[in-house]
């Protein structure tokens, strides 16, 4: 919030995404019906997750690939490292994957002496800067052209470019070298299809296609909620995902991978591995009040719509997933302290639920998490405040007495019916807003003394 230039640049981008989604929705016949259908598909799949993951496993193996179910990030990283080690891999190229961010995979690879290079342009930029994604669809959206120019020039030791086209070509040249020497790729998966054992990647830069075809080994990592029963179901979800993410009708590339290269095929990897990550998603699955967080298809529409995200930015959420969905999954998937405050950083305005292509009731879950936070770590002082509030609200004479006392106390700070600097707990309000003095007589008192108007 401190940098007005950054703030207005971001505002422009988020508003662009937000309006893009709204016009894509308006241009789609039966948009609401498709959201309903998308949600029904997710409800059904998550309710029968064990079945569909089993079917997915059978078909991935049947296609000649390997599947590994990882309980947590550590297990997933160890598996990926094992694959790299057995394949004598020194360089791994990555295509955009939020789950690999969740795993901290780049760190794990580098710690084991394996070079890991992001190939999505935005991810590449934040990797050069040593940062985490600011937005799940547009990870480097907070970086100005000048910053990008500095990062790319420092990487190549060459001159600083200033035009966006030149910067892109510079990054492309740097990445092309890495593509040539990489023995293995790690990608995410927007969907996995149970009936065919395929994974689906949605990209706009073509790096996903390069990553899934050029290296000898391809490892895809995904959260266990990403499975869809059939190609037909996946197509519905794909439609609403892309429109909600960028407002496009279809992304530049949609890549389907059906395992390793077959004997009659010219391209493709020799080995294919699919890592399916739990990492506490089972907690969400087991809790009926939180289960719908697993319906998320990671489009980012809730962030673009969220007035809080738009003010605080993507690095304020303490973990890898920002915005409303981050405020819901971070407390559930991690035990981070930062996660405890997140559900309270919302006005419950409902813009996220309205934007969500699968109608996830994010405000309801934020409320649920607030109650859970109070139960597990509420302070005695705050509990006492609410107990006395309750006492004042459960009797009209107590209510009037409390209101009169509050007014009496506040009058000491007021001038002309307004307070410029209130005592705690209202100090936060008057930091930037005047606070009105309560009325001298309540509506109840006024109502008693009035003469009714005559109706006509």
């Amino acid at each position, binding site marked *: *919030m401190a940098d007005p230039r950054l703030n207005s640049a971001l505002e422009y981008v988020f508003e662009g995404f937000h309006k893009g989604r709204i016009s894509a929705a308006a241009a789609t016949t039966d948009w609401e019906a498709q959201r309903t259908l998308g949600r029904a598909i997710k409800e059904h799949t998550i309710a029968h997750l064990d079945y569909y993951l089993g079917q997915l496993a059978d078909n991935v193996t049947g296609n000649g690939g390997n599947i590994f179910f990882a309980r947590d990030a550590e297990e997933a990283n160890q598996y990926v490292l094992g694959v790299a080690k057995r394949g004598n891999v020194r360089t791994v190229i990555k295509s955009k994957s939020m789950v690999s961010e969740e795993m901290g995979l780049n760190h794990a690879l580098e710690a084991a002496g394996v070079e890991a290079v992001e190939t999505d342009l935005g991810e590449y930029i934040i990797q050069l800067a040593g940062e985490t994604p600011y937005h799940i669809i547009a990870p480097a959206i907070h970086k100005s052209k000048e910053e990008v120019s500095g990062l790319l020039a420092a990487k190549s030791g060459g001159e600083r470019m200033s035009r966006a086209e030149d910067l892109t070509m510079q990054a492309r040249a740097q990445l092309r070298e890495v593509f040539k020497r990489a023995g293995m790729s790690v990608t995410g998966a927007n969907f996995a299809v149970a009936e065919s054992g395929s994974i689906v990647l949605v990209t706009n830069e073509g790096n996903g296609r390069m990553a899934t075809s050029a290296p000898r080994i391809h490892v895809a990592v995904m959260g266990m909620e990403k499975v869809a029963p059939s190609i037909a179901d996946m197509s519905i979800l794909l439609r609403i995902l892309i429109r909600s993410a960028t407002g496009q009708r279809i992304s530049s590339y949609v890549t389907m991978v059906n395992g390793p290269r077959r004997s009659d095929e010219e391209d493709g990897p020799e080995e294919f591995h699919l890592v399916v990550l739990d990492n506490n998603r089972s907690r969400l699955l087991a809790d009926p009040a939180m289960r719908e967080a697993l319906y998320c298809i990671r489009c980012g529409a809730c962030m673009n719509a969220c*007035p*809080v995200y738009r*003010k605080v930015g993507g690095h304020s959420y303490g973990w890898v997933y920002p915005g409303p969905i981050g405020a819901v999954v971070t407390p559930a998937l991690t035990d981070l302290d930062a996660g405890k405050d997140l559900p*309270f*950083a*919302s*006005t*419950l*305005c*409902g*813009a996220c*639920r*309205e934007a969500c292509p699968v109608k996830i009731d994010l405000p*309801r879950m934020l*409320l649920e998490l*607030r*109650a*859970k*936070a*109070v*139960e597990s770590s*509420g302070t005695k002082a705050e*509990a006492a405040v*609410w*107990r006395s*509030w*309750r006492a*004042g*609200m*459960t*009797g*009209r004479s107590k*209510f009037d007495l409390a*209101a009169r006392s509050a007014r009496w106390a506040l009058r000491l700070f007021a001038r002309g019916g*307004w307070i*410029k600097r209130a005592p705690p*707990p*209202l100090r*936060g*309000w008057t*930091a*930037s*807003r*005047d*606070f*009105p003095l*309560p*009325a001298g007589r*309540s*509506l*109840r008192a*006024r*109502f008693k003394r*009035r003469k*009714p*108007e*005559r*109706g*006509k």
Partner: protein
Amino acid sequence: MSESMGAKWRPKRVSLFSTCLVDQFYPEVGESVVRMLERLGVEVDFPEGQTCCGQPAFNSGYLEDARAVARRFLDVFDGEHPIVVPSGSCCAMVRNFYAELFHDEPETLERAAQVSARLYEFSEFLVDVIGRADAGGRMDCSAAYHQCCHLLREIGVDAQPKALLSGISGMELRRLERAEVCCGFGGTFSVKMSDISTAMLDEKLDNVEASGADVLIAGDAGCIMHMAGGLRRRGSDIRVAHLAQVLDESGGGPAAARPGSRPA
């Protein structure tokens, strides 16, 4: 709107749920609601024991305290008449969130459903129940309408206040950019997360000032308090008013007496 223009039902009497904010901070809003209803031929009673719906504690995660206050609300508003409330947020609490609050208390849940079925937000009552989208009179001013979050996105009331406003002659409705975006109030959020709340309010008020309106109209006292407090700090003389106040001040109500208007 056409289907709600005709009265479906004309209750003789309603109970007013003023909300705690209107009762204590904006009694004049409550008085405008009462005058409007009476001019439209609806008697109003004020259940004397009323305090709050319980939303502040519910939103803060203190469910037991919220339940105690909500149960009392159900006792106070037990009855047969429709209940009118000049707030989208408090209406949403009872209509949508009591079901969450009492999900494992079947009897209370049933009572909550009965009370909810009788509960109407003010503009919803005027337009959808008694069919009086034409209840406005005359007010010469330029106005902007802020779409309060819970009114718009929790109970889906948007066409009704807009219809009522467009029925006020002399009022020029200005375009308010991003009218549907939250003003940053959010109850205790405004105090606990003051910086974020302020950043949201600043954007809202920049848009309000850019609209060129003299009057900013909204349907919820919390948002009104927030935006009015921010405008006053800016030294702006834009007035913030509740929809009921502008309808009342426009001399609205007895539209049946005005030539060319639709009989009630």
